[in-house]
C-alpha cells in the first residue's frame, strides 16, 4: 500500500530544515557521507565507473535530468521529470541528495536545505576528489604553495615578504580597520632610496619603483632569464602580469628589409588628447579597472583612486574613506594613471 505523504512544515521559528535535523538525529550522517564519497566526489577510476553506471534515473534512465539519490533507501530518480518526487510520494521518504554537487532536497519543505555538518562533509570529499584528479582545491583561498614558499623564504634580506605578512593575508585577515601597508612601503624605501622620506612623490614613479623592486626580487629568486635569445625576457610573476611588448619595425629605405625589435614595457604614456585621433584598433579587449587622480598643484597634492569591483560597481578610495561612485563620475575625472586588465586571460 502506498503511503500517503503528509506534508509537514518546519516550525516558522526553526532555522534550517527540521526534517533533516530529525533524520540526522535518528540515523546519523553515514548514509549521506557514503553517497557523497561514492557517487558525488569519487577519488579513483573504479569508483567513478560505479558512479557512471548508477547515476541514472530508475524510472526513465535519464542521466542528465538532475539525478537525486534517496537518502533513506537505494533509489535514483531524476528531478526534471519529477521521478524523485514520485518516489517520495510512494515511499514516504522525503530527503534526496542531488548528485552533481551533493545538495540535499527536502520533499516536505519542497526546497533544497542547508546543513553545516553536511556541507563540511561535501567540501571535504570535493577537495579529495579534486586532489586525486590533480586539480586545485576548489574552496581554498590563496595559500602559498611549495614553490611560492621558497620564493618567499629565500628573500635573503628578510625584507618582510614573509607568508604571514603578505598583503593578501593582511587583506583577508577579517579585521575591519584601514589597511596600512607599512611593510610594503618600508620595502620600497629600502630599495628605492630616493622615494624614502616624507616629501611628496609621484604616483607613477612609485608604481614603477614598486614593480621594479618586486621584479628584481622574483627575478633573482627564479634564476633569472631562461630565454638566451631574449635577455629581457623574464618569467617572474611581475613580468607575466604587467609586461607588454612594444614592437618597433625599422624599414630600410633602399632594400625595404624590415628589422623588428620587441621591447618590454610596463606602462604606456598617452599623448594629451587633441580631439583628432581615431581610436586605435585593438585585437584584445581590455577593461578599465582603476583610475588614479591627482588633486592639487605641481608642488603637492593628494591622490584619489577609483576602483571597479563586481563588473560595474565603482568605488572612490580617498585614503581610508571609501564611497560608491558611478561611471560618469569616473569618466569625468582628469585621470593620471589608468589601469586596465585583459577581458579574457590567454587561452593555452
Amino acid at each position, binding site marked *: 500500500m502506498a503511503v500517503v505523504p503528509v506534508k509537514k512544515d518546519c516550525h516558522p521559528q526553526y532555522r534550517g530544515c527540521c526534517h533533516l535535523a530529525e533524520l540526522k538525529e535518528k540515523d546519523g550522517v553515514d548514509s549521506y557521507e557514503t553517497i557523497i564519497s561514492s557517487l558525488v566526489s569519487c577519488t579513483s*577510476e573504479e569508483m567513478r*565507473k560505479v558512479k*557512471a553506471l548508477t547515476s541514472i534515473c530508475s524510472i526513465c534512465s535519464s*542521466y542528465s535530468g538532475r539525478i537525486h539519490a534517496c537518502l533513506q533507501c537505494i533509489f535514483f530518480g531524476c528531478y526534471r521529470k519529477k521521478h524523485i518526487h514520485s518516489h517520495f510520494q510512494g515511499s514516504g521518504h522525503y530527503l534526496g541528495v542531488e548528485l552533481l554537487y551533493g545538495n540535499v532536497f527536502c520533499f516536505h519543505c*519542497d*526546497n533544497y536545505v542547508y546543513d553545516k555538518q553536511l556541507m563540511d562533509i561535501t567540501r571535504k570529499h570535493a577537495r579529495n576528489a*579534486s586532489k586525486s584528479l590533480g586539480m586545485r582545491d576548489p574552496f581554498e583561498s590563496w595559500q602559498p604553495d611549495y614553490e611560492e614558499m621558497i620564493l618567499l623564504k629565500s628573500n635573503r634580506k628578510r625584507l618582510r615578504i614573509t607568508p604571514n605578512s603578505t598583503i593578501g593575508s593582511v587583506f583577508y585577515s577579517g579585521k575591519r580597520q584601514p589597511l596600512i601597508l607599512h611593510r610594503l612601503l618600508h620595502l620600497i624605501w629600502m630599495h628605492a632610496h630616493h622615494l624614502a622620506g616624507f616629501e611628496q612623490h609621484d604616483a607613477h614613479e612609485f608604481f614603477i619603483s614598486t614593480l621594479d623592486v618586486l621584479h628584481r626580487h622574483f627575478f633573482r629568486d627564479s634564476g633569472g632569464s631562461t630565454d638566451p635569445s631574449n635577455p629581457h625576457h623574464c618569467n617572474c610573476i611581475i613580468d607575466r602580469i604587467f609586461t607588454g611588448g612594444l614592437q618597433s619595425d625599422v624599414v630600410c629605405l633602399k632594400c625595404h628589409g624590415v628589422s623588428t625589435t620587441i621591447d618590454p614595457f610596463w606602462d604606456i604614456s598617452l599623448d594629451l588628447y587633441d580631439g583628432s585621433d581615431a581610436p586605435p584598433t585593438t585585437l584584445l579587449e581590455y577593461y578599465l579597472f582603476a583610475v588614479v587622480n591627482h588633486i592639487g598643484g605641481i608642488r603637492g597634492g593628494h591622490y584619489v583612486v577609483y576602483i571597479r569591483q*563586481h563588473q560595474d560597481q565603482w568605488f572612490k578610495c580617498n585614503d581610508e574613506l571609501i564611497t560608491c561612485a558611478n561611471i560618469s563620475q569616473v569618466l569625468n575625472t582628469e585621470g593620471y594613471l589608468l589601469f586596465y586588465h585583459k577581458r579574457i586571460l590567454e*587561452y593555452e
Partner: protein
Amino acid sequence: MDKTKEAQMRATMNQKLIETGEKERLRELLRQRLVEAGWKDELKMHAKEIVKEKGVERITVDDLVTELTPKARALVPDSVKRELLQRIKKFLEEQQL
C-alpha cells in the same frame, strides 16, 4: 544517425567523461571561464533581484532555476562554448569514440 543510436552514443560518452574524471575537469574549466567573463557576477545580480522581488521567505530554488535558466544559457559567451566544444572533441578523439 538514427535516434536510438544517437542516444546510445550520448550515454557512452557520458560514461567515459565521468569515468576518466574529464567531466570534473571540464566543469572546473567552465566555472573558471564563466567567472572570467563576468557571467557569474551578472547572474548573481540577477538572482538577487529575483529573490528581492519574490521575498526571501517565499522563494524556492525551483523558482530561481525556472527564471534564471533561459537568461543564464543566453549569456554564456560563444568563445566559451567553442572552447568547451573543442575540448570535448579532443577528448573523444583521444578515447577513439
